[in-house]
């Protein structure tokens, strides 16, 4: 008790010392980097660009509509490595760069082809960066170009790719870490999602999610698979939550479109003594008919079965085409077959892992899609048909 006055004084002193911010690095001294890009210059140096928010304009546009002034601006810098390029960027910035909110990173096609090995380290080493980040390859264009494309729905265009990615049912923010995991795993080849720039509304251009870029073991771009192929790949890796499939039904002379959800996957591998690997892929899902351009009355079980069988058969073929393309054309295991084999036949895997790249090309793959059509929507036969037109 006798210490009371001293303790009290000390407490007050603490308040005086700790409540203020001493080196005053407040919001007005920071600039938030929401997306950035790196491209290859003609002379072999890197060009980095970043999209920064202009906070005052964000407020304006939320109050009084779009005033014509963009709420972001882009600053670029080039250098022999990333840090030097950032240094050049900083020379043009009045505020300190804060990267905690950066979600997207675009890589130009030229750079991706040359290899992104030198790019990766900076992202995970610098504690200011987050490893939860999406990296994108820009097909047929530069990353800087993507940053410059405005997007009508989002105030900050960089948010658009993120949201597109999420809207199509993929997990967001995981691609960078997955890239690192794949490149550090024996046999796996890394991938990144791809965007490209396409002509959009009137004179405007817009960003489109193209598919997936496949890299080789030297972190160089080997090629692309398109959006649907990418979705099949995601199905095999169980990273998908939504997929549309349309198939032509020859028996009914029209096409039926279904939306698939509740995905499941079973991989069964087997390996012969001569190191011949077989892989049985069984993909399952729950489907719901959302478009029917045939004359089939889908209330009839027989017709629904027909549609279901055709869709399963055709989709199986498409998935197999994708797998064959990845096997033969790129020779890069981006389907996690190596991990499946490692899990299911660990002893054999230890023997063959050194020659996986050659073995992977000759894997015998069988695909069996089992989508269960559970609902046909609100109508049986298409409403526009006359009585008698529809096939019972």
């Amino acid at each position, binding site marked *: 008790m006798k210490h009371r006055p001293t303790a009290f004084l000390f407490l007050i002193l603490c308040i005086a010392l700790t409540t203020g911010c001493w080196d005053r690095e407040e919001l007005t001294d920071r600039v938030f980097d929401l997306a950035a890009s790196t491209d290859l210059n003609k002379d072999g140096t890197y060009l980095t660009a970043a999209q920064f928010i202009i906070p005052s304009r964000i407020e304006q546009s939320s109050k009084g509509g779009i005033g014509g002034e963009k709420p972001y601006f882009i600053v670029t810098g080039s250098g022999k490595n990333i840090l030097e390029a950032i240094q050049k960027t900083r020379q043009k910035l009045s505020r300190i760069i804060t990267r905690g909110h950066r979600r997207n990173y675009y890589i130009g096609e030229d750079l991706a082809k040359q290899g992104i090995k030198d790019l990766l380290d900076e992202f995970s080493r610098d*504690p200011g960066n*987050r490893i939860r980040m999406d990296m994108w390859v820009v097909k047929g264009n530069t990353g800087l170009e993507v940053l410059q494309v405005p997007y009508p729905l989002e105030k900050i265009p960089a948010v658009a790719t993120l949201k597109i990615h999420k809207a199509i049912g993929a997990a967001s923010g995981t691609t960078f870490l997955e890239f690192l*995991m794949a490149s*550090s795993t024996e046999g796996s080849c890394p991938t990144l999602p791809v965007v490209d720039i396409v002509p959009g509304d009137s004179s405007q251009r817009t960003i489109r999610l193209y598919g997936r870029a496949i890299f080789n073991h030297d972190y160089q771009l080997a090629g692309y698979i398109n959006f649907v192929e990418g979705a099949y790949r995601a199905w095999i890796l169980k990273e998908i939550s939504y997929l549309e499939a349309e198939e032509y039904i020859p028996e009914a002379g029209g096409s039926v479109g279904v939306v698939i959800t509740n995905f499941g996957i079973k991989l069964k591998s087997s390996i012969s003594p001569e190191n011949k690997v077989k892989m049985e892929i069984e993909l399952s899902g729950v489907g719901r008919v959302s478009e029917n351009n045939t004359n089939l009355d889908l209330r009839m079980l027989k017709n629904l079965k027909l549609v279901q069988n055709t869709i399963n058969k055709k989709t199986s073929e498409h998935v197999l085409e994708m797998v064959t393309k990845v096997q033969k054309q790129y020779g890069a295991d981006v389907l996690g077959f190596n*991990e499946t084999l490692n899990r299911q036949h660990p002893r054999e895997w230890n023997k063959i892992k050194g020659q996986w790249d050659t073995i992977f090309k000759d894997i015998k793959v069988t695909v069996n899609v089992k989508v269960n059509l559970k609902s046909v929507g609100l109508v049986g036969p298409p409403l526009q048909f006359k009585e008698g037109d529809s096939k019972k």
Partner: protein
Amino acid sequence: MKISGYQLFWLIFTMEFGMTAIYSLSSDAFVAKQDAWISIIVATLICIFTTFVAVRLSLLYPEQTFIQYSQSILGKWLGKIILVPYILMWVSVTGIILREYADFVFVALFSSTPLWIVILIMLGAIVYVTYSGGLRSISRCSEIIGPITVLSTILVILLSVKDWNWLRILPVYSNSGLLPIVKGGLSPASFLAESFMVVMLIAFMTKPERALVSSLAGVAAASFAVLVMTLFIIMVLGPNLPAKFIYPMYSVVTYISVMEFIQNVDVLNVLIWIIGIFIKASLYFFITSYGTAQFFHIKKWKNTIWLIAPIVFVISLLPRNTNEVMNFAKFWRDVIFPVNLVGIPLLLWIIGSIRKKYMLQ
């Protein structure tokens, strides 16, 4: 200065969990890749054994501290000689803990604050808590901090559930082997074995007979928490990446993002770890001061604080970079851990038990 069994449990848990999870789960612990969690189980078994030895050793002389009874067991001079490496170990590890803490704070929070200020502020808190009430205030702090640590750890784990991929733990065993698993366990074991410090704490217990249960439960709880963290790291980062991170635990927590708005929870965690480190450093500081006082027969043990504090401060500033700090951790694992934490206590226990039996006859 008396502590209860409950307090001893929380003391051991808080001092072990934070440091082990963030520092020892690095490249050395992940030698066995996705089987690192088996390494942790190996480490747990080792440490339950060493803790058992330490407690049984102390219970031979429940009224005395390690400093006193090692002299009773081995005689005055041999006992003193054997205590020298312990005093040196305690002084140096207190300094190194402070430095490890400051290095981490430097990376995670304040990259422009000088290290010595970060260290000095923590040292100030440690000196204050040790001077004001000694072991009693430290154990009361741990009683409050411990449950908070547990709650926040559970929170972090719950927030990360959706990033888990169970398949990443498979295949079990076949990609590593016995040697990497045991090797991976050594570094966490060397951290968990710091529960050896009970040899200085049991003398302060109101009911020494509860010491065995409390300390073993403390070690087991801390090991279990570390095990969960290890599984969590593997399930998020896969088998190959964790070994490449300096602080995989921290990197994993920065990765958490729930529904796009619960993000950057690492700051919360850093704070929890900091108060955990505070408990550990204070305990070591108390043990060093009290031990030194008993060693030199200084009547008022609190006077040694003013000698130990500057020494600890200087030691914490000695390493020139983070790699030298890690070299100390290697030295701790390869030399101090087998000799000071396993070898000598085991020897003392054997000699002490024989002596007691002989004396009774």
